[in-house]
């Protein structure tokens, strides 16, 4: 009797009730759709590389942003963090001619520090992360633009990475696949370990689920939230480094598209906007979905404008599905609530 109950709960029924399943269906659906509409070129290695490269950069940002969102916060500042860090690298190692690794460390440090500042302000003031990170998005963007003009006198700075750094951060394998894909894999393994295997991961879920109860159990809530914002800043800075090495330079307007794209990837991946629930596999699938739509459209011969329409609809469906999941999970077993 008891084993029967156990089997049921890990079976198909519970699988389809998880939001990640929706993300899997979404990713498969858009892949099949564009495989048919885009034909052989889309499915060829070059086609796969085009969306994998986009997914890799987005994924490196989306995974830590997902952690922030599971803990119940939001990080909109990633766009400016990316610009600030890539500018830091380009100015230090390009304009001033310092070794590339010095620029990279400084860039990652800049991203992490902006993240810590976000976390510090959010936890000290108790203002919504939405407002605080929107403010940093603008402030950091303005700061980057102002300082770059002041120091360099232009809004674009070129940089040539040394061969080792170029190989590690900015090459295309087989002329197609960006090394960012491997960085993405690394970030995915690390974030999965943090979320599922470390104690810290349990704290993230607890803080997103019920911050007051989490605090009552002795979890250092403020420190965890600050650390997550720092991770999010680090992720954005890493993409800044990858882009600067890949494109041999930086522009102040880089990265703004990641602000909303990362949230789309995370939400399509089944992370609840209210916090408390989410999975790395879901976010990876959400990222792939986004990248497939974003790049697949070019293989169809249609106007690329339609990609945004598809993404908008997917986002709406995902939020509705996630909401339904949340309602079911919260009312499960309570028949009174189900009637509503």
């Amino acid at each position: 009797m008891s084993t029967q109950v156990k089997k049921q709960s890990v079976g198909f029924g519970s699988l389809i009730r998880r939001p990640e399943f929706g993300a899997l269906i979404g990713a498969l659906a858009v892949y099949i759709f564009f495989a048919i509409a885009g034909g052989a070129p889309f499915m060829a290695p070059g086609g796969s590389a085009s969306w994998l490269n986009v997914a890799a950069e987005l994924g490196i940002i989306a995974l830590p942003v997902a952690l922030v969102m599971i803990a119940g916060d939001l990080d909109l500042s990633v766009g400016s963090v990316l610009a600030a860090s890539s500018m830091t690298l380009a100015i230090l190692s390009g304009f001033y001619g310092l070794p590339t690794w010095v620029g990279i460390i400084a860039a990652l440090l800049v991203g992490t520090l902006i993240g810590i500042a976000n976390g510090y302000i959010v936890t000290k003031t108790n203002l919504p992360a939405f407002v605080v990170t929107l403010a940093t998005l603008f402030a950091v963007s303005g700061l980057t633009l102002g300082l770059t003009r002041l120091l360099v006198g232009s809004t674009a700075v070129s940089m040539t990475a040394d061969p080792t750094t170029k190989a590690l951060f900015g090459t295309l394998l087989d002329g197609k696949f960006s090394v960012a894909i491997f960085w993405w894999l690394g970030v995915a393994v690390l974030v999965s370990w943090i979320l599922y295997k470390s104690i810290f991961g349990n704290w993230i879920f607890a803080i997103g689920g019920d911050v007051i109860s989490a605090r009552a159990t002795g979890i250092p809530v403020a420190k965890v939230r600050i650390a997550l914002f720092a991770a999010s800043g680090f992720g954005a800075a890493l993409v800044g480094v990858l882009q600067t090495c890949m494109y041999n330079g930086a522009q102040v307007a880089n990265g703004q598209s990641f602000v909303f794209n990362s949230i789309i990837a995370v939400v399509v991946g089944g992370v609840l906007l209210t916090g408390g629930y989410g999975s790395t596999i879901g976010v990876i699938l959400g990222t792939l979905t986004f990248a497939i739509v974003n790049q697949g459209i070019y293989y169809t011969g249609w106007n690329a404008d339609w990609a945004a329409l598809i993404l908008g609809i997917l986002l709406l469906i995902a939020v509705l599905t996630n909401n339904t999941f949340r309602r079911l999970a919260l009312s499960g077993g309570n028949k009174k609530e189900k009637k509503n």
Partner: protein
Amino acid sequence: MSKATPILSLKNVSKVFAGYRALNDVSLEVYPGKVLCLLGDNGAGKSTLIKVLSGFHEPTSGTLEVNGVTAVFKSPKDASNVGIATVHQFGGTFPLMSIGRSFFVGAEPTKGRGIFKRFDKKYANETAVREMQQLGITRVTDGDRLIGGLSGGERQASAIARAVHFGANVLILDEPTAALGVKEAAHVLRIIMQARNKGVAVILVTHNVSHALTVGDHFAVLIRGEKADDFAKGERTREQITDLMAGGEAMAELERELSTLTGTINQIN
């Protein structure tokens, strides 16, 4: 009353919020293996009293004693360190976490060492399920299930099991039966008795007199922040308690008023 040292006692505790006296000169004693029922209407000061006991508020005046020694709770952590655990109306747990994970929030078991130190999910799930089964929740066999998928009574049970597992010797239950159906409530009352039999001191906060009478050893009634009455099992009847909670004479007046109303309705019929 003088036989043993109370595990927790309040001596003339008052709590004032910006000029409003939420608690006025309340003294209480809680003994191991006994259930103290804290009765009172909405706004009588029950919640404030719980918050003082669980370390969320410091009393404005008066003292707390743990095992006869004066204690000051600066934070909920201080209270939980001496074994005081509070379970709220909806179980106070994390609805979107698994049973095993939520059971160990803040006290996660680990295996491995160094950078391989990791959350021991198997142990967490097995322990959580075993502790719940010991409280009679036999329907739960899989620690991976989400807390949100449990019934209200099962959630209460998981929270109580958690508190008992982590060595709570004073268990404060805030309206555990208020949101439950009759059967579920009965089950929670049974779980309270099991905790009591394990030697845990239970403070049951409720406005349901029959639930209180079923499990209580000792009773205290709060009215507008003051302790209006304090008595042992069998010293008062159900009616006396209900009247007291509703404010005595006010209740009799209400009954008179209602009887005229029903009279009118009968006349119409």
